């Protein structure tokens, strides 16, 4: 039987991880990744990649927890293997601090991360403006390294990488039998989805190798995330702002907010500015749609709208997307389906 030809649109963390999961779960598929942007030019590349979940209001908590747990376990295994450095995944400990005691003192993901506990009085002394905090160990997954590592694995298993800009999903027909739409913000056009919009985030990448802990203000607006080759300082959340150029005033503000939490950052050097547009949607879209036009049919699995939480849940949602693709493939191959086509 001919392999089913699957196009994954998008080469950010969602697109590439989905392609990997499909290659494992759908052996009868022949896969191509189609994208106009690859690392280091994707939205994922700007993200710090800290595994601290974003809450999706429209998704049941047990589902979100499962996605986060699957992602955490997957990356934890990589972090403890000899591949950790090649994959850009490592453990990092730190603190999430609050100016007032949060209504939810223990978040749903507390038992997924490692060693979660409340901060002691002595630990809180470091942050005089804050009265409560969490201490835990989590993972950092750095896309500028992780994405090329995924890409290498994909090429190794025969997946085609096609750098191409798509204006319409129908362009992929009839070359492909199934399309997996991981185009993030691109879905505004490709899926005609007006529910997805950018939440602009500006960050600074600095050299401060002595900073070994993450520090995140409970609101999520101010954070310090130490990585392999830099420390990321953030951030902003600007809804509906499409501007990809860094703003100097914002950079000064970010730096000042972060220095307030970690004064030694005043000695940081080689400061660079980056901007990313988070693909925000009220609900993460993970569903199959059968496109039909002029007698043609094209099954599409939509997998986009991860907002701030792409890296935190990418593996869990990619597994789900791959399962949906598997269903499409089986449907295409059953005789009744073929007669309908």
């Amino acid at each position, binding site marked *: 039987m001919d392999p089913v030809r699957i196009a994954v649109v998008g080469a950010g963390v969602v697109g590439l991880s989905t392609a990997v999961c499909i290659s494992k779960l759908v052996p009868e598929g022949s896969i191509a990744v189609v994208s106009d942007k690859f690392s280091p030019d994707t939205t994922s590349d700007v993200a710090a990649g800290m595994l601290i979940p974003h809450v999706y209001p429209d998704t049941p908590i047990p589902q979100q927890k499962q996605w986060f747990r699957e992602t955490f376990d997957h990356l934890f295994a990589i972090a*403890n*293997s*000899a591949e*950790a*450095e*090649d994959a850009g995944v*490592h*453990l*990092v*400990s730190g603190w999430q601090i609050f100016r007032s005691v949060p209504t939810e003192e223990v978040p749903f993901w507390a038992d997924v991360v*490692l*060693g979660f*506990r409340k*901060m*002691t009085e*002595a*630990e809180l002394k*470091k942050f005089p403006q804050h009265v409560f905090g969490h*201490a835990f*160990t989590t993972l950092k997954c750095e896309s500028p390294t992780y994405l090329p590592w995924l890409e290498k694995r994909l090429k190794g298993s025969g997946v085609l990488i096609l750098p191409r800009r798509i204006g319409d999903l129908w362009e992929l027909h009839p070359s492909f039998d199934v399309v997996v739409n991981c185009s993030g913000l691109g879905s505004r056009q490709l899926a005609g989805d007006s529910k997805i919009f950018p939440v602009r985030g500006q960050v600074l990448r600095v050299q*401060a*190798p*002595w*900073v*070994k*802990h993450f520090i995140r203000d409970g609101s999520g607006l101010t954070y310090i995330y*130490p990585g*392999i*080759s830099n420390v990321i300082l953030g951030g902003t959340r600007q809804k509906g702002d499409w501007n990809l150029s860094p703003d100097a005033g914002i950079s000064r503000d970010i730096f000042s907010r972060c*220095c307030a939490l970690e*004064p*030694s950052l*005043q*000695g940081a050097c080689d400061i660079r500015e980056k901007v990313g547009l988070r693909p925000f949607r009220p609900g993460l879209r993970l569903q199959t749609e059968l496109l039909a036009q002029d007698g043609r049919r094209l099954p599409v699995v939509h997998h986009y709208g991860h907002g701030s939480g792409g890296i935190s849940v990418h593996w869990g949602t990619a597994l789900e997307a791959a399962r949906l693709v598997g269903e499409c493939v089986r449907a295409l191959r059953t005789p009744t389906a073929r007669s309908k086509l």
Partner: protein
Amino acid sequence: MAHCNLSSLQAGTMRVVVIGAGVVGLSTALCLHERYHPVLPALDVRVYADRFTPFTNSDVAAGLSQAYLSDPSNPQEVHWNQQTFDYLLSHIHSPNAANMGLALISGYNLFREAFPDPSWKDIVLGFRKLTCRELDMFPDYSYGWFNTSLIVEGKRYLPWLTKRLTERGVKFFQRKVESFEEVARGGADVIINCTGVWSGALQPDPLLKPGRGQIIKVDAPWMKHFIITHDPEKGIYQSPYIIPGMQAVTLGGIFQLGNWSEVNNNQDHATIWESCCRLEPTLKDAKIVAELTGLRPVRPQIRLEREQLRFGSLNTEVIHNYGHGGYGLTIHWGCAMEAAKLFGNILEERKLLRMPPPHL
């Protein structure tokens, strides 16, 4: 014991010579000068040493603030550890922390079986036992602790101390001191002996021995935690440890009592490399940037006491401050304060203080 005698200053300066420019010598000089120069402007402090940073043992040490697991034979040492930790922690919040070589760091202490909590569990931050999932990361170990402590890196801290001392007018002299007598005859009123492992050359001390250590420094910037293993059968520092510093990561696990060799040894290199890579497989990709040997000044307890020496008609006060083993950086400031207190006693006895210094 406040001395309220307002007798006028003795004529001439009070000359103090600190011998040794490792962390103990420099911090003692600084503590002393900070405390007594305001009340004794005629205080002249100078540092004599044959080795300065980056060639001291303090520069070789990984710099993690962590005392030994077993209680020290001198209970004062617990107090000095606490004082040092609190002092360094108070500087962590300063913009200068990185210039001082200070940073917070968290990590793992690993054992093959259950072990009693250490005396310093309430000194460090957030001390707790390891969870099962955390222990899964270390297949050779079945028990352990997690806590947050400090790095105090000699290579940055010593230059910082040197700057502070230089600003205060303390002078440094590169010389190899052969005897206390030569320093006394040179005009020193008080000698502070911070000569570390070489103190025996100035005054025999059978209790003082070198605890040779060798370390490999690597670039492994993905390592954010210290990992220290313990093997009670082998003894302290003879089990692999991985300690990230301000920039590079220190790999170690060598402790040879009585070995004076300051040369790197190939067998020790192999021991460190193999045991650390087994502990942390990601290290196989790490680039080696340096390899160093140092001699820990091992002693059953720190010698921190006064001694009066007489050379002919000269009466010289000596304050000994040596024998800090592998925990000099961990305990240095508490010891410096104690040495400064002993110096204060000398000043009171000689009626040199116009008023008691504010700290006492």
